[in-house]
């Protein structure tokens, strides 16, 4: 715990400065308290920030504090927190105790041995989807890459599959795909007629051939989640491959947009602990707490992510359930994006995709 005392020393000495005093006057107490505090009475959770923080707070952090007496401080992490995660473990400066990780982040961190084991099994969390628990990681929510389209543009005859997205004669309009091989290669193969359950291993050459056909018709290659929702909300494009929660945010805001779940590719986001963390026990306790179906159901009231504990649907109203990726009707027309294939091929695919898109 030497780091802890060093940290608060720095803070105190800085607080003596004029800037520190000015800050101290306006900062809420929670922010001033150093993140690395005495073990077991407080943990720091890195979540995606923004609208996620209040949602996690309401459904997980506050109930956990109430149940255990362990305080949860939340900080915002990056979309790809792996670099920070690695730095935290290697320098042993545990500013985070728990962090949300995608499957790809989990696998990369696993490979470099940067995750702390969770020490619990599927039997400890009944109802959990089998894909959402490994020895070092537990999934809490499911997101999906789906086809979003404008209902003012496609009123009666809407695109219902990636083959429709590729069909520029029958469905004229401006299109957008993500500037990334992940999901895009799968979508190309689905458009080319590969069945959903036979996608992996990906036939890469076939995928790029299919992409060649659609390339001249792609108006925008998007790079960030906020950009994708802005594109479809403003009508800059008429159909787009994007993440369901982004599309749902646009729909909830009243834009004429609809989600086509068919041939969607879902993935899971969950919790991991930086290896060697001195508060790992409290962190494990927190993660286990998040497997609770009632807590997961509460989370879906705020954000359109699917619970990983399918028992949660017992208490989710049907109208909301239909907007979630793990709702039975939605889940059965989608497939999980296979992380083991991407883990082995991502670097090569990135290079090839970048070269391809430059033309």
């Amino acid at each position, binding site marked *: 715990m030497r780091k802890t005392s060093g940290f608060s020393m720095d803070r105190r000495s800085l607080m003596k400065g004029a800037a520190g005093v000015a800050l101290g006057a306006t900062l809420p107490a929670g922010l001033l308290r150093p*993140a690395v505090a005495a073990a077991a009475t407080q943990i720091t959770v890195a979540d995606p920030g923004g609208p996620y923080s209040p949602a996690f707070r309401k459904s997980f952090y506050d109930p956990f504090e109430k149940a255990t007496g362990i305080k949860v401080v939340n900080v915002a992490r990056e979309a790809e927190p792996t670099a920070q995660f690695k*730095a935290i473990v290697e320098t042993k400066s545990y500013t985070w105790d728990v962090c949300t990780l995608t499957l790809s982040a989990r696998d990369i961190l696993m490979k470099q041995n940067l995750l702390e084991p969770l020490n619990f099994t599927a039997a400890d969390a009944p109802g959990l989807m089998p894909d959402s628990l490994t020895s070092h990681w537990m999934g809490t929510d499911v997101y999906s890459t789906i086809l979003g389209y404008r209902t003012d543009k496609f009123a009666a005859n809407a695109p219902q599959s990636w083959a429709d997205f590729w069909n520029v004669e029958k469905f004229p309009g401006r299109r957008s795909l993500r500037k990334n091989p992940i999901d895009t290669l799968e979508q190309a193969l689905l458009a080319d007629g590969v069945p959903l359950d036979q996608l992996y291993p990906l036939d890469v050459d076939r995928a790029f051939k299919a992409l060649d056909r659609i390339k001249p018709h792609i108006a925008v290659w998007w790079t960030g989640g906020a950009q994708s929702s802005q594109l479809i909300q403003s009508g800059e494009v008429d159909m787009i491959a994007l993440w369901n*929660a982004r599309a749902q945010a646009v729909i909830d805001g009243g834009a004429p947009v609809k989600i086509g779940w068919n041939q969607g590719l879902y993935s899971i986001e969950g919790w991991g602990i930086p290896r060697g963390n001195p508060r790992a026990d409290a962190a494990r306790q927190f993660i286990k707490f998040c497997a609770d179906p009632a807590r997961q159901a509460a989370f879906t009231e705020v954000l359109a992510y699917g619970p990983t504990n399918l028992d949660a649907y017992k208490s989710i109203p049907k109208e909301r359930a239909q907007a979630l990726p793990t709702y039975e009707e939605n889940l059965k027309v989608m497939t999980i994006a296979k992380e083991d294939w991407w883990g082995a091929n991502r670097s090569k695919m990135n290079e090839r995709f970048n070269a391809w898109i430059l033309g």
Partner: protein
Amino acid sequence: MSAATLHHDGAFAAARRRLRFGPLWLAAPGLAFLAVFFLFPVLRLLGLSVQDLETSAWTGDHYARIVATDVYFRVLMSTFRIAGLTALLSLLFGYPLAYWLAQLPERQRGLAILAVMVPFWTSYLVKTFAWMVILGRTGVINQILSGTGMPTLPLLHNEFGVMAGMVHAMLPLAVLTMLPVMTTIDRRLVQAAETLGAPPANAFWLVYFQLSLPGVAAAGLLTFISSLGFFIVPALLGGPQQTMLAQLIITQIQEMLNWAFAGALATFMLVAAMVTCWVYDRLFGLSSLSGETSGRAGGGQGHLRNAGMKTLSALAKASAALGGPVGRLLGPKMMDRLLPLYSALVIVFLVAPALVVVPIAFTTSPFLDFPPPGYGLEWFRVYFNSDLWVSATVRSFAVAFATAILATLVAGLAALALARSSSRWRGAIFAFFLAPMIVPRIVIAVGLFYLFAQIGLVATDLGLIIGHTVLALPFAFVAISAVVKGHDWRLDQAAATLGANRFRTLMLVTVPLIRGGLVAAFLFAFITSFDELTVAIFVSGGVKTTLPKQMWDDMILQLNPTLAAVSVVVFAIVMALLLIAEWLRRPAR
């Protein structure tokens, strides 16, 4: 002019020999700062690029991978094309505006500069989304076009969109770098040339323009090198052709966690940027910024200088040939109004995004709709009711202020040192002070995290200030160097002859005379910190949130008008501060 400088160089050599210490010592704090907080952490990270991922044995594999395909080279080329075009356009559009500003009466100039600086106070995230709202298919311009029955234009997701966003971001930097140099030019020199029979075109190109060249060279360098590191603007406003190398480096660091290859890519870009700087130095005399040209130009570089003079004469002839007929066509009255009119247009371009952002801040829609369907204060309520937003704002202002003071002080000393030194280390030191601008920010950010973790500065405000000062130093340094270059050291000598010691000379003679450069340096450093995201992400660890970081986190799911409301609040605070500063300055005069 060059004869005069030559003369003063000669006179100075004797004085310099007397000062055993040598003025280069003034650069020592800056050098030490950069050695600890820049060179060491960055080299440690770049060192990974020659190590094997598994065994840490020496390897050239990561570099071999770059050469194995042409994709990295092509992305490098497009990065340089975009940065080069941005710099060129910023100079072309910025020079006449700076010229116009320089000859305005001081009071009016102050007001006009406020307008030029408007883009500074809007976060680049917000600016970029404002351009999407303006240039999009359903955007402001195309709504007007289709409303008047004209065909809509493809303004976004192509090179045009990128240039609009990039030049908009870089133009104020270019103008404010050139301006202090132009205001120190003695306009009577132009009159003298005309009295001696030079046609107006010759008087401008051969006298005024030549004297303003240090400012142009500095502005070109700053805009070019800072454009090299851009990636969000090209990603959001451009198409696939506008891919930047910085983006690929970030992908390797954050998504692939392959720091060795990221280090190799960063080194690749660094070498290319350094070669470019070297060529630039040959062409425009980069080190001239620190006051070297006259001696060199008179000596070994005679051919280049002759070529330069010939180019300027040709430009003078061309503009005279063009100016004559245009002048007859428009009449003298119109000709006089041409420059103010042009300047007004450029200023409209500069404030356009702000004009979109302000109404959106008051919208009732949850989106960035323009025009807003209704007006209300909801997004301001969201902002003021959030401790996170308010504390991030306070922290950003405090950190930026501290960064600006530190960077101006350290860079000012270094610029003075270099200007008065004749050491052969000068070129190297100059390049070293520019280096933090060339190294991709993410490399600095990751390197600093490791260093800060070892000395307990992670998630502290002091860590943020140090990190931001590293990034701000080059901007402050170049801004001051450009002005110091035109400084007449004989004035300092005169003060010394009259009995002033070195400190009094510095405070009462040198500093007041180079004030323009110091103000520009302070501003650039402030803005660098205030709008900085990458270092904030790593150093803050999410605990000490700054405003750009909070904006970045808030816009994950969708863009909401809170960002616009924040921009309006920041803008109001900055304007209030500037007016108070102006009011405090008044009585003294």
